[in-house]
């Protein structure tokens, strides 16, 4: 077995090797720890590397598997966890200096479930401060894109995207409030799923916006996402709005054909995407048609106003959550960009927040209407490939610039955060400059199985998700 190939192997390939004891969890963990030690000085995907815990968990997994106690496909699999999720006894900073000494005494429910499934925790992954985007002064180093170190790996689960793409873990646990799983997945050439809001528990995650925060995996394949989602999903009495619906076996239907499935390409998102992204989605739609799907165009008019609705709603909630930290002695511990964004949110009039909340309800109805017309929505995951890090850190200089770049272009991921629908991003091509492009699939409430199936079928026909960065580009 080629060790370096194992660093990029999906869970579904590693699991049988681990179960049949052809690969040792300890060796596999050491491989990843070595790779982290080699590559993470430049990538900064991890805030904390949990070497001792990882090796102890790997030894336990090895012992259990050796005794015939096999817990399932995640047993012995090395993972990374976004530093937004509490991990008992392990530093959890949410990417902020304000939590630089926070060592929780609980596990977030989602991580607890992964631990129960036998994973090996390699470390806590870097993120933009408190899961907002646009961090300038990264307290734990700037996370970089393994496809090109001068580019953003996406936000806010930045380390999860960078680490998984660079072979510094097999899968990452991310969190998505407005696109924070799908955006890093798209920029790093990976698959990431934000489940239906309520499908997974929020307990133990540092919150940003209670009604859109959602945990989910970032992985190499749709099938790996199905495996991880199957473990973390389900009701949690410690999260009152987590759903009591039974969790299906997300892997079970992946091989069912998609013949006759109706897919709707979202016109308003296509209009904002760059030409090479439009072309990539059009070509991907043809592949899906080749698999028997029926593709048409759909319109969701309010998608074009999502940027403003999201800011007037979620930035205000984020600001409310952090009011105490925005005052007094804490002030200078913030990253400047995060502090300015939340202070802005603090001053938004309630009438505007209320209007945004009602508009959100109209948007939700429009998305539901489109999903009565078709089974799955198709949209670019972003306007184009990963952007330069400086672009994410630039100060705005005019109202027109903010309206155009912050609000008018936010048509890709946040509409489905606000509506609560499940959405995933899968690689669908590469740009002229050799960077991954992402296609987003959006499903009906609690129908993650269908979007995972479409992505899996698409991946069976395309090579994009198998491409790896060379880790030498700068």
């Amino acid at each position, binding site marked *: 077995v080629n060790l370096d190939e194992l660093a990029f192997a999906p869970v579904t390939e590693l699991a049988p090797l681990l179960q049949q004891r052809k690969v040792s969890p300890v060796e596999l963990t050491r491989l990843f720890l070595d790779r982290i030690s080699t590559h993470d000085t430049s990538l900064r995907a991890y805030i904390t590397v949990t070497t001792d815990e990882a090796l102890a968990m790997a030894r336990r997994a090895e012992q259990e598997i050796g005794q015939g106690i096999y817990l399932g496909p995640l047993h012995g699999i090395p993972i990374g966890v976004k530093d937004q999720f509490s991990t008992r006894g392990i530093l959890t900073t949410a990417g902020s200096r304000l939590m630089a000494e926070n060592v929780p005494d609980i596990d977030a429910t989602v991580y607890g479930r992964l631990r129960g499934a036998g994973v090996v925790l390699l470390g806590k992954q870097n993120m933009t401060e408190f899961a907002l985007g646009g961090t300038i002064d990264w307290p734990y180093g700037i996370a970089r894109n393994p496809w090109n170190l001068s580019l953003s790996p996406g936000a806010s689960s930045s380390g999860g995207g960078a680490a998984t793409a660079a072979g510094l873990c097999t899968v990452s646990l991310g969190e998505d409030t407005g696109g924070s799983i799908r955006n890093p997945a798209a920029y790093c050439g990976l698959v990431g799923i934000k489940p239906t809001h309520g499908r997974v528990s929020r307990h133990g995650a540092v919150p940003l916006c209670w009604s859109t925060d959602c945990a989910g995996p970032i992985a190499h394949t749709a099938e790996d996402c199905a495996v991880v989602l199957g473990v973390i999903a389900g009701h949690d009495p410690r999260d009152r709005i987590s759903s009591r619906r039974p969790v299906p076996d997300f892997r079970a239907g992946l091989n069912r054909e998609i013949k006759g499935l109706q897919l709707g390409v979202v016109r308003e998102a296509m209009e904002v995407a760059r030409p090479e992204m439009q072309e990539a989605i059009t070509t991907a739609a043809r592949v899906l048609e080749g698999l028997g799907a029926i593709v048409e165009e759909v319109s969701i008019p309010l998608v074009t106003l999502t940027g403003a*609705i999201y800011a*007037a709603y979620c930035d205000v909630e984020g600001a409310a959550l952090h009011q105490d930290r925005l005052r007094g002695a804490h002030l200078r511990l913030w990253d400047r960009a995060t502090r300015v964004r939340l202070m*802005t949110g603090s001053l938004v009039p309630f009438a505007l927040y209320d209007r*945004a909340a*009602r508009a959100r309800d109209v948007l*939700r109805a429009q998305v539901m209407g489109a999903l009565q017309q078709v089974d799955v929505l198709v949209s670019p995951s972003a306007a184009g490939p990963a952007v330069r890090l400086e672009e994410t850190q630039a100060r*705005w200089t005019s109202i027109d610039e903010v309206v155009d770049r912050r609000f008018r272009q936010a048509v890709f991921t946040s509409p489905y955060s606000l509506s609560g629908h499940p959405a995933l991003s899968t690689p669908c091509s590469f740009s002229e400059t050799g960077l991954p492009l992402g296609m987003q699939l959006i499903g009906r409430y*609690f129908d993650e199985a269908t979007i995972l199936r479409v992505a899996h079928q698409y991946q069976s026909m395309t090579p994009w998700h198998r491409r790896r960065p060379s880790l030498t580009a700068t």
Partner: protein
Amino acid sequence: MAELSSEDVRFLSRTFGLEPLPDEIEEITLRLNALFRAMEPVERLDVSGAEAIPVLADEAR
């Protein structure tokens, strides 16, 4: 919504007990005014019958 001046933002911040650093006032003013402008079409929307409380997916009809 009327455009705010830096002085308005300074006053509002102080009223709510916030103390942005001096060079941040301009940026907060810019962001607020941009949001007000971006929300103009949202304010013209017909939201009669729409609820201001997020509907949980479990309850969506």
